[in-house]
């Protein structure tokens, strides 16, 4: 069997009485994108910080390309690149100087530092701003520079901690494209995200974490199949109608909808057959939905089904999510 690029066994981390990670296990195949999915504070960043040797685990172990992140930390650091949640670049240096600094600190041969910096600036569409201090950059530019910095030593394993949080859709798509390119060149990528769409788009395998525990480990496709491929959403006039409708459906059709305010949600195996039955049934009781939607299930639905609560979507730059900062 091929040796995993990343292997995490029984990984736990406590900060005082706070359990940030509780017995996390997963493996990442070389040359794959692996998604770590969860809401703010789920422990995603803590996993990344342990794997990048920044933080020691309280229990369990983790390996990168067969090297233990605690005992062989110096070796692991030569194999990884890290792009964090907030752009870890020096605002007073220019983009080019930032990349040269990382080149020097990763012991790139002197003759390769400058060409490597120029090539990355070109690739990340930063060539025009290369010689301006980073403090004049937009948020998207800083984020791109941050990812470029992680790539300076051409690491075989790349950690991206919420790489697209706060990016506009265009920059996000460009970054997705780049991640796909890196993977096709053989790089292994572990990325954390709160965006279910992102994991769905990029990752061949996803671990869903909530409150420090793994609650699912599967392919995005399998997670969706497991729950049914389709979601039916009904929006009722008010909350009491929604509860009534849910009772009727559960009692007569054997599918229990989830109720959220005025909204009902089902993920049945046979959506089109069920939809007709639901509508007929509700009409007979005088319950007419305001809107009816049938769509493909997303990982958001998966998360809701697994945890009973939604992920927090939308950009969050909340520093509480960095895991360890007290």
């Amino acid at each position, binding site marked *: 069997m091929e040796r995993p690029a990343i292997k995490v066994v029984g990984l736990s981390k406590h900060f005082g009485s706070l359990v940030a990670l509780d017995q996390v296990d997963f493996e990442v195949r070389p040359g794959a994108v692996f998604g770590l999915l969860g809401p703010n504070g789920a422990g995603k960043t803590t996993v990344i910080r342990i794997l990048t040797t920044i933080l020691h685990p309280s229990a369990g172990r983790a390996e990168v390309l067969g090297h233990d992140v605690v005992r062989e930390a110096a070796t692991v650091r030569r194999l990884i690149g890290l792009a964090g949640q907030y752009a870890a670049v020096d605002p*007073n240096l220019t983009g080019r100087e930032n990349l040269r600094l990382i080149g020097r600190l990763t012991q790139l041969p002197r003759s390769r530092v400058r060409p490597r910096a120029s090539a990355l600036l070109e690739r990340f569409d930063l060539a025009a701003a290369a010689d301006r201090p980073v403090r004049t950059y937009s948020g998207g530019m800083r984020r791109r520079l941050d990812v470029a910095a992680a790539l300076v030593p051409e690491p075989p394993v790349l950690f991206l901690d919420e790489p697209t949080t706060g990016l506009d859709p265009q920059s996000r798509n460009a970054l997705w494209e780049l991640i796909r390119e890196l993977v096709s060149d053989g790089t292994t990528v572990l990325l954390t995200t709160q965006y279910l769409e992102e994991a769905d788009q990029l990752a061949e395998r996803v671990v869903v974490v909530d409150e420090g525990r793994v609650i699912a480990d599967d392919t995005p496709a399998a997670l969706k199949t497991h729950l049914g491929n389709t979601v039916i959403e009904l929006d009722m006039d008010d909350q009491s109608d929604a509860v009534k409708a849910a009772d009727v459906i559960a009692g007569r059709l054997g599918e229990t909808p989830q109720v959220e305010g005025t909204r009902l949600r089902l993920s049945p195996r046979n959506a089109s057959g069920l939809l007709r039955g639901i509508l007929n049934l509700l009409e007979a009781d005088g319950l007419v939905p305001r809107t009816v939607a049938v769509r493909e299930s997303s990982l958001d639905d998966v998360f809701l089904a697994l945890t009973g609560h939604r992920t927090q979507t939308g950009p969050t730059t909340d520093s509480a999510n960095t895991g360890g900062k007290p």
Partner: protein
Amino acid sequence: MTTTTAPHTHAAGQPGRRIAATVRDGLAVAWRNLIALRRVPRLLVFSTIQPLVFVLMFRYVFGGVVGPSLPPGVSYVDFLIPGIFVQTAVFGSMNTAIGLATDMQTGLMERFRSLPMARSAVLVGRTTADLARNVFVVALMTGVGFALGFRIHAGVLAFLGGVLLVLAFGFAMSWIFAVVGMAVGDPETAQAAAFPVLAPLVFASSAFVPVHTMPGWLQAFANHQPVSQTAQAVRILVLGGPATSAVWQALAWDVGIVAVFAPLGVWFYRRAV
């Protein structure tokens, strides 16, 4: 496909390679800190204005009072300038704490900690850059001193020796404040924590006034603390006199401080989260 063989680990074990790695990575970080100093001139301006204010204030406000308690034949400006040098180096070391604490608040420190660089490099780079800044400030204060009537009495070489002693002391103090910066982790707290420690060290010393005018209990402290001993050694090197024992005492402080605080700083760097 991805190369899965690890490149050979450097550094681990051999002290020679470890020192080489520290110097190489420390210089890279110092380069980065000095660029910031050039690009954010206020950092340099503030650390220059403060000793300027002190030298003018002491020369013209307190000079008249202090003058008569000096040994005969010694002018206050000649007494004062070595003290100002030391005071500048001591207050300047606060910047080490502020700089490191600022880095800790950004993601940059996290990145450094994930890179294959020497664990001491971030601290070495900061203290080295602060040393370079002290060279500039001391040179400037020398010029100001000359303009105010300061003169070298014991030869240029002895004077340069005195300047080196000041720089060595500033470097040692930087290591104390590197630990403070790593321990508190935010620039405002670092600054607030530093001042109450620095003020008694600088003012209850021979930096600005002769110690023998202080009450006896304070003299005991003032005579034996590093600011006084360094100021005294520099003063002898400038004014003339037997300097050897004073210079060794001052150097002993510097070596002792670095020997304690450098490992402590690296320990904080390794464990900081």
